[in-house]
C-alpha cells in the first residue's frame, strides 16, 4: 500500500510541523508514507478567485504527482473537499474526467484514513489538555469528512474534548476572503473567539491549517492565551514513546 502525503501549501510554507506530525504518526501506526515532491496546490485558491482554468492546471499536476499512490492523505479538510468534490466537477465531460474521479476516490483526510483504511479505534499515548474543536467548513460540507477527526482526537487518553458552541459556523478565514475583507473576516473570527472563550479550553484544534492560523492570529492580536494546534500535532505528541519512569 503506497500512501502519499499531500501536505498542502499552507502546511508546507507556514506550519511544516503539522506535516512532520502526520508523517511521524503514520509511521508509528505502521504506514510508510511518502511525499511525492512534484505535488503542488489543490487549486482551491484559483477556483475561488475565479480562475477555473488555473485550478485545472493545478489538478493535472496532482494527477501526475500522485499517480502511483494507492491513497492520498492530507491534513486539510478544505483541500480534501477540493480534490474530492470540485476537481471532478472541473473535469466533468472533459477527457481527464477519469483522472479526476480516480484522484477523488483516493483522497482522504488523515483521520478518515485512520478510521476507514487502518481501522484505528483509538490512538495511542496520552495528552492531558482541555481541548475544543473547530472543524473545517469545507471538510464538513464539501468533503463531508464527518466527525472522524473529532473521534480520533477524543480517543486519545487525557484529551478532554469540550464541545464548541456553533462549531459549524465559519471562523471567517475563507482563503482569499480573509485578504479581501480583513475587518469582516476578523469580526467573524471574533464571534468564534467568544465561543472558544466560553469553553474554557486551553487549546483550540481542528483539521484546517487556514482556519487555525487565522484563529491564532486573532488570539495573539487580542492577547488571548489559548493555544492553537492542528489535531495531528496533538495525536503525534501523544504517541511519542515516553521513557519509563
Amino acid at each position: 500500500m503506497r500512501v502519499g502525503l499531500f501536505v498542502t501549501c499552507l502546511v508546507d510554507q507556514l506550519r511544516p510541523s503539522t506535516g512532520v506530525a502526520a508523517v511521524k504518526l503514520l509511521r508509528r501506526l505502521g504506514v510508510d508514507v511518502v511525499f511525492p515532491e512534484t505535488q503542488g496546490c489543490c487549486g482551491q485558491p484559483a477556483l475561488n478567485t475565479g480562475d477555473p482554468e488555473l485550478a485545472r492546471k493545478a489538478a493535472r499536476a496532482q494527477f501526475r504527482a500522485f499517480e502511483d499512490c494507492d491513497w492520498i492523505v492530507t491534513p486539510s479538510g478544505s483541500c480534501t473537499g477540493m480534490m474530492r468534490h470540485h476537481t471532478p466537477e472541473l473535469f466533468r465531460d472533459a477527457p481527464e474526467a477519469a483522472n479526476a474521479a480516480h484522484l477523488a476516490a483516493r483522497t482522504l483526510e488523515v483521520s478518515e484514513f485512520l478510521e476507514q483504511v487502518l481501522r484505528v479505534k483509538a490512538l495511542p499515548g496520552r495528552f492531558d489538555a482541555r481541548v475544543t474543536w473547530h472543524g473545517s467548513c469545507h471538510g464538513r460540507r464539501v468533503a463531508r469528512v464527518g466527525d472522524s477527526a473529532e473521534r480520533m482526537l477524543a480517543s486519545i487518553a487525557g484529551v478532554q474534548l469540550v464541545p464548541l458552541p456553533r462549531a459549524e459556523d465559519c471562523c471567517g478565514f475563507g482563503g482569499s476572503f480573509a485578504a479581501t475583507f480583513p475587518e469582516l473576516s476578523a469580526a467573524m473570527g471574533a464571534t468564534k473567539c467568544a465561543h472558544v472563550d466560553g469553553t474554557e479550553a486551553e487549546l483550540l484544534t481542528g483539521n484546517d491549517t487556514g482556519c487555525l492560523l487565522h484563529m491564532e492570529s486573532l488570539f495573539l492580536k487580542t492577547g488571548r492565551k489559548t493555544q492553537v494546534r492542528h489535531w495531528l500535532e496533538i495525536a503525534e505528541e501523544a504517541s511519542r514513546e515516553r521513557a519509563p519512569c
Partner: protein
Amino acid sequence: MLTPEGDFDARSRAALATPALGRAVRGTVDRLRNLRAIAEADADLTRQRRAAATEARTRAIDKLPELLERFTRNCEARGGVVHRAPDAASATAIATSLLRKSGARRVVKGKSMVTEEIELNAALEGAGIEVTETDLGEWIIQLAGEKPSHIILPAIHKTRHDIRALFEKEGGTPLDASTTTLCAHARRRLRERFLAADAGISGANFAVAETGSIALFTNEGNGRLVTSLPRLHLVFLGMERLVENFADLAAMAEVLPRAATGQDLTSYFSIITGPRHRGELDGPEALHVIILDNGRSRLLEDVAFRPVLRCIRCAACLNVCPVYAEIGGHAYGGTYPGPIGAVLTPVLRPEEHAARELADASSLCAACSEACPVGIPLDELLILQRARNATLRPKRALRLALRIALSGLMGDKAHGTSRRLRFVAKVLGAGTPQRRALAKVLPMLARSEAVRALPVIPPQSFRELWKALQAGENTRAR
C-alpha cells in the same frame, strides 16, 4: 437597485463600525436558527420534505412558460386579471394606472420583496397615492425611510428603542419601549389605515397554475387584512413563483414555514382564487395579478444559474450565514441580502460592476447551501459567478501578482516556486523593514495587520524538512 455609496467592502466596514447592529442581528438569527433546528429535528422527515419541495419547484421552473400560461387562463376564468411586466418600470406603471383608474388614493400594503425590487412605493407616492406598509417590520422601515435588511424580518437591525422613537414621532404621543405597547400602538394606527384603504397590495408566496390561485403565508394577519378589506387587490408575483397544483402547494407548505421561522405552519395561510363572489360582503371586488420578469427570463435561459429560480425566499440561508450575522442586510446594497442576495443580485443585474462583485461577499463556507430547503447550491454558484466576473475584471497589479504566484504553485513547477515563495515570505515576514515599507504602499496589508497578528514564518518548509525525515526513516526504530 444598488445603493450608490461605496462598494460591499466599504458598506460592510461601515456596518462593523456599528456594534449594536451586529449584536441585534446576531441575537435574532441565532434564535431563528434554534427554532429551525427544532422544526427540522427529524432528519429523515426533513430530507423527504425537502426532496418533495425541490422536485415540485424544479418541475415548475422546467415548464415555467406553460405554467404561466395555465395560471393566467385559470386566474382569469375566476375573474382575476393578469398583467405581465417585463421590468420594474412597466410593473410600477401598470399599478399606478390601475389605481388611478379605480380612483384609489389610499393603499395598504402587505410584505412583498418584489415590490421592494421595483421600488413601488416611491413610484406610487410620486403619483400622489398614499402607501402604508402594514407588516410591522415593513412599517418600521417605512417610518425610518430605510430598506428592509432581512427577507422575512425587515427591521431585524432595529432595537426597541429605535422603534419607540419612530412610533412616537409618527403618533405624536409618548410610548414606553415594551413590545406590548409598541405592538398595540401599531395595531391601533394601522387599523385606521386598513379601514380607510381603497386598495390593497400584496406579494405572493406562490401561484397555483391549475387553479389560478395565489397563496400567502403570513403571521401577523396584515396580509389577510390587505386582501380582505379594500375593494381592489393588486398582487405582485415574481415570475418564477409558480407551482403546478395544490399537491405541490402542500409540499411547499411543509418546508417554507419550517425553514423561515421554525413553525410547522404560519399563523395564516390564505389561498385566494379570484375576487369576491357575488353576494359576499368582503374581499376585493377586483383582483389584478402583475407578474414581474425583471431579469428572470434571462435566468431561465442560464442553465447553470437556473436553480436560483427555485428560491422560495425563506431566508434560511441568511440566518445561517456568518457574514450576514456580522453586517446585516444593508451592506449588501441590493434588495436581496445574504447568500441568496449575493447569488441573485449579480445575475439579475449583470451589467452593474457593484452587483457582480457581491459574489465575493462570502467565505464559501457553504452553510447556506446546507440550510436551503430547495437545494440551491449557493456556494457553488458564487464560485461560478466569480469565474464569470474574472473575465470582466480590470487586471489590477495586485491581482496579477497574486495570479503569477498562484500559477507557480499550480502545476509541475510547484517545487521551484515553493522555494522562491519562501524567499519572498522571509523577506516580507512580519516585522521586517521591507514588510513595513510594503504595508505603506499596499493598504490591504496594513488593514490586515490592524486586525490580526501575522504568522511567523518558520525557518524551513516541509519540503526542506522532508529530506531529514526521509534520512531518519532508515535509522529509527519504530
